[in-house]
């Protein structure tokens, strides 16, 4: 009888009755063949691999992360509560010591969902990983978490949620934003003033293969991870870097994904995108599961794999190598850059931007203000209005906020109540409270 060296948990929630639309890439059939492969391989019979039933995320779990306008219920369907709940189930099982590693094979995905939710973005409504991480922080008191987003699309939602959080290291490896949705995730995007450097973007050129991907992980990602010393490593495991994916232009294989998982050693993997539902997903998911559990994955090879046709061009190899150098340099200089931002004595830093909710066809304008703070992530204030109107104000006080930031956040909330907003939200994380006025 086959035995897994590492006790590994799986939540399998293919949501066979949920789709964005009948022919949309994010549709019922997406995990069908993956489920077929997982069942046919007898993965769930391997001693040491357990299947867990997903819990339902609660509204409170969502409100720890998001500002849903007008409310959580209208942003989410049942499947979103289950998908986020599935990630939470894996997280809890890991922290309870029930399993060493776990993989939430759930849909719908979540890594394009930002802190503010005014519609659907890139097939995502809410951020499964963030909902899980904040639930775990609340329940188990863990602090330092690393998220490695290996979906082919930039994890702009997760980046946004952790932009100001120095306790969360967010590393996104993705196809260069100049060639793919959402067009973001450049090396210059390194986090807000209180968390500069803990957001790391590695935009890989089209046609990057296993070789380049694994090289940058080994030489750049792993040393940074080691230095950050996270208590928990989360992998946003998108599978759209695969050579057969219809939406992207990368050349990753199932073996590459398995090897990537072996290198990253994530405690928790959460499925993100991946739309080659027949040619890639069954094999990639097998590779990831076996690798997590420590079971031999060398026979997991796509039937149509032709290594010559996806060999990495030399110019890509050079480009990826330079990208690694830039990334390591940025990481090493992060303290100096953080100090430089404080040189002119400002106490509040502002930015304004537009956010596109492509899945819902909504455009949002945000005015963001962050309190510069050396003691915590800083109080955060977001004014938001969409092209359909409805201005709202959202205040976030981070979990380990200093007294000054707590006060600032409260003041902003009180002042906001008299302002010209349809709704004013307060995410008071130190007290684990969410208020709406």
């Amino acid at each position, binding site marked *: *009888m*086959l035995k897994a060296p590492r006790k590994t948990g799986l*939540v*399998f*929630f*293919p*949501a*066979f*009755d*949920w789709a964005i639309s*009948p*022919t949309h*890439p994010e*549709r*019922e*059939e997406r995990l*069908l*063949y993956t*489920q*077929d*492969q997982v*069942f*046919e*391989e*007898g993965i769930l*019979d391997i001693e040491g691999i357990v*299947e*867990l*039933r*997903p819990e*339902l995320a609660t509204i409170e779990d969502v409100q720890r992360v998001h500002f849903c306008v007008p409310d959580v219920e209208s942003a989410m*369907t*049942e*499947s979103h509560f*289950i998908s986020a709940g599935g990630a939470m189930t894996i997280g809890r099982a890991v922290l309870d010591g029930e399993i060493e590693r776990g993989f939430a094979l759930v849909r719908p995905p979540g890594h394009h969902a930002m802190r503010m939710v005014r519609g659907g973005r890139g097939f995502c409504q809410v951020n499964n990983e963030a909902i899980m991480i904040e639930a775990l922080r609340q329940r188990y008191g863990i602090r330092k978490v690393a998220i490695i987003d290996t979906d082919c699309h930039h994890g702009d939602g997760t980046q946004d949620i952790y932009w100001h959080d120095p306790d969360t290291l967010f590393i996104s490896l993705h196809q260069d934003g100049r060639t793919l949705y959402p067009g973001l995730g450049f090396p210059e995007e390194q986090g807000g003033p209180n968390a500069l450097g803990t957001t790391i973007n590695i935009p890989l050129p089209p046609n990057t293969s296993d070789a380049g991907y694994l090289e940058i992980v080994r030489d750049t990602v792993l040393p940074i991870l080691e230095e950050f010393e996270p208590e928990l490593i989360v992998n946003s495991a998108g599978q759209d870097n695969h050579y057969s994916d*219809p939406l992207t232009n990368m050349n990753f294989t199932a073996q590459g994904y398995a090897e990537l998982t072996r290198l990253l050693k994530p405690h928790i993997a959460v499925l993100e995108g991946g739309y080659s539902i*027949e040619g890639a997903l*069954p*094999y990639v998911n*097998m590779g990831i599961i*076996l690798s997590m559990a420590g*079971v*031999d994955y*060398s*026979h*997991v*090879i*796509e*039937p149509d794999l032709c290594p010559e046709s996806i060999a990495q061009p030399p110019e890509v190899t050079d480009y990826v190598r330079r990208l690694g150098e830039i990334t390591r340099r940025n990481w090493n200089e992060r303290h100096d850059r953080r100090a430089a931002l404080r040189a002119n004595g400002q106490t509040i830093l502002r930015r304004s931007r537009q956010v596109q909710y492509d899945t819902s066809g909504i455009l949002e304008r945000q005015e963001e203000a962050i309190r510069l703070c050396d003691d915590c992530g800083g109080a955060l204030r977001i004014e938001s209005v969409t092209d359909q109107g409805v201005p709202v104000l959202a205040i976030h006080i981070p979990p380990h906020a200093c007294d000054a930031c707590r006060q600032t956040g409260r003041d902003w909330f009180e002042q906001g109540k008299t302002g010209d907003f349809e709704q004013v939200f307060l995410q008071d994380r130190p007290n684990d409270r969410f208020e709406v006025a």
Partner: protein
Amino acid sequence: MIIGLDVGGTHTDAVLLDCRGVVERAKVSTDETDLFRSVLAGLDLILEGTDPGCITRIVLSTTLTTNAIVRNRVEPVGMIVCSGPGLDPEVHRTGPDYHVVAGAIDHRGREIQPVDPDEIVAIAAGFRERGIRQVAVVGKFSCRNPAHEVRIAELVEPYVERVFMGHRTSGHLSFPRRIATTFLNASVYPIHRAFFEAVGGALREKGLSAPVHIMKADGGTMSLEASIDAPGQTVLSGPAASIMGAIPAAPAEEDVVVLDIGGTTTDIAILVGGVPLLQPVGIAFGRFKTLIRSLQTSSIGIGGDSHIQVSDGQLAIGPDRCGPPRAFGGPEVTPTDAFVTLGELNAGDAARATAGVTEIGERLGLDEHAAAQTLIETACDRILAAVDEMVEQVNAQPVYTIHEMLDGYRIRPTRLLVLGGPAEHFAPYLAARSSMKVSLVPDWGVANAIGAAMARTTCEVSLVADTERGLVSVSNSDAQWRCDRHYTRVDALRQASEALRNLAIESGADDEDMDLELTEDIQFNIVNGFSTTGRNIRVSLQIKPGLIHGYRLPGSASSRLFRSEGC
């Protein structure tokens, strides 16, 4: 009239039923070394004075294949496996004659690597040289396309006595379980066939011409003829027979837990609406995880003859049995001795039993009366805890759609139905310690044989239609047929029910006992480049375990109800 006969580990139970109920019942000791004699002895007893011509149905349940596997008294099997990508197929090795060959099918039933006939013929010749007569051929995803298995079987057949194919076992996905199941079928085939051909012959000599059915692990039956093709289905049929025997006593509107308390173990099963729950995939049996459909049971090593010990002032019960209870000359104290000590069971040597319980009592600081009670109560608490655990486990089984997740039926049992040898003595104690109603199955001593007699033929088919490929395949059959783009779920349901009906008739079912039940019903758009190019339709139908029509038994109204003192 019909006959049910269950050869168990210690006893062989037999009953003769007519439309009003049990006419004859018999219990004889099982001779483990000669099950054939046990079968005939049981039949002789209940047939005394009955015209064999009046018998219309005979159902047998035996430990034959179970014992053969447990004691490894099975024939060597030659195994041929086609794997394709995935786990290393070596991890599924069944024995020395295990051959991984060229040939692979993918999840949609498409060939991704052809079979190499020369390779197969060379292996088959080797089988013949080594005297291997049974061969199992199993391919990954063969239930989506059996072509490779069929081709390999054709090539091997001239060299051996019998070839079993994986896709004939089940429509469920699980390559390792398909390997184990096909291997078991092949390895118990000679012993099963020899035994039942002999039984069939002996019955005819007695003038019994009624069809003979064999009990399966899923609480259903199959004809003797059908069992020759799938002998593995008969493993662990004994516990299933007992559970089926409890059904007449189960109120249909309640969730019911069935406890079959034996000498060394207690088997737990759950009835929902009078129907026993089935294992989601298949039975796990020793080192084998299989696709053999079976009732969902859980077993705890506590029974009337479980060995009782005291260590560090704590009572430990089971899981071993060290011979019979003290009262019957055995070496160790058992719950049975406690019942004897309390005067609740009038059997064996009461003085020996009491002396044993007194010894236990001394080490617990209790007199023999209190010790006997504590001992029984501890056993009951362990059994009840196992019941809770099983209910929890069943309720935690994963589901895959939003609808199932939100509307998931949760089992909340309100009644315990108790049967088996010591059931009568345990029942009042269970009632006092459980919030559930506790009742004793009428005829609890031979309920297993009644269950066998009345169990109907069960079977299952799964149909997968892929309208993009234009192909329909159905489990347990070599056939695949074409379909066009207009093929719908309704067509799939019609063809699946036809296939199920045919299979049921082949397996010995009666037309009136065919309650078809839909167990899987999903369909997906197959999309290529943002347009729908076909549908993937999957339906599974079963005839679920249940009782045949026309035989009435005392129902729940007449079962003895035990009330806890609080009520």
